[in-house]
């Protein structure tokens, strides 16, 4: 058991990040190959200024008009995405483990803060889940895989929360937590999670076209 725990909390973390980085590089190479073959005219108007203008405009809460049309969904989504990165990166237990193996360390959230923020993430995911049942236009577009992705994101947060509180089956809770966290990292480049890289590229593309060609705002 000890060597298994040592493996999933040691080498497997690095293997997961390696697969993640290699996957991202391959996906991006494939994407740019496609652009070069089919749409290489985008380079004629692609601009740094309009790309970043668009990316930043879309990062400001409620600046884009479309986000004002569904304020509740958008607010929850905004906070959710922020916490999705904030919590695991600044969690005391994660940073402590990293310090012990790599001597890297940085500021951390206190455990009680992280615990409350984790609850916000879990409730956001429940909201996204229910929304897919009750909002007709979303329900219409929902497939089984949408629920699967909500589950994959929920798993490391729910198991981390249950483990922290030591409610039951502590050792197994941590094992499932670590494995589900690694699964999520590995899946990013190969699934819909890749939108974390595609979204800024889409903004650069659209922002440049609106700024340079149509002389308009794209938010």
């Amino acid at each position, binding site marked *: 058991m*000890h060597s298994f725990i040592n493996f999933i909390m040691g080498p497997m973390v690095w293997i997961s990040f390696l697969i993640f980085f290699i996957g991202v590089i391959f996906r991006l190479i494939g994407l740019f190959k496609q652009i070069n073959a089919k749409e290489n005219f985008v380079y004629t108007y692609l601009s740094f200024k309009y790309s970043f203008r668009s990316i930043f405009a879309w990062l400001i809460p409620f600046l884009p008009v479309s986000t004002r049309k569904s304020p509740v969904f958008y607010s929850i989504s905004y906070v959710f995405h922020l916490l999705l990165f904030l919590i695991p990166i600044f969690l005391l237990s994660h940073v402590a483990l990293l310090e*012990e193996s790599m001597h890297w360390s940085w500021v951390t959230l206190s455990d009680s803060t992280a615990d409350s923020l984790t609850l916000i993430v879990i409730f956001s995911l429940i909201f996204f889940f229910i929304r897919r049942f009750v909002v007709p236009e979303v329900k219409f577009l929902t497939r089984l895989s949408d629920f699967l992705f909500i589950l994959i994101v929920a798993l490391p947060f729910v198991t981390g929360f249950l483990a922290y509180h*030591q409610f039951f089956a502590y050792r197994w809770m941590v094992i499932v937590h670590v494995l589900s966290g690694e699964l999520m990292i590995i899946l990013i480049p190969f699934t819909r999670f890749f939108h974390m890289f595609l979204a800024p590229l889409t903004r650069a593309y659209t922002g440049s076209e609106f700024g340079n060609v149509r002389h308009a705002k794209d938010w």
Partner: protein
Amino acid sequence: MMKLKRFIFITIVILMITAFYSYSQEEFPMVDNLIFDHPQRPAAVFDHDDHNEKAGVEEDCSICHHVYEGKELIKDESSEDSLCSECHSLKTTPENGISLRMAFHNRCKSCHFKSNNGPVLCGECHIK
């Protein structure tokens, strides 16, 4: 009148149970964590002599209570009259590359991993 007697009786029982629990919890031996600014976790369970007997390390105190001169480990000498925090500060400094939390964790966990026995996950030492 009966009601009042019953009320007093129940109150006394509850008080005794609470007293027993708080007493028995304090009895459980732990590594003191008061040196940490705002302890984030319950203090780690560690029954010093019992642990070292079970782990078969009661002969060599220097496995944990080691002595350094600068960065040089002095073999065959031990520092059981000092706390770990006398040399390991809370934050890493140029003189000491091992923060106090990390000193505890690396010492305890590396041996547990090596001997395939003993706790290795947060909640197995920091028991709520």
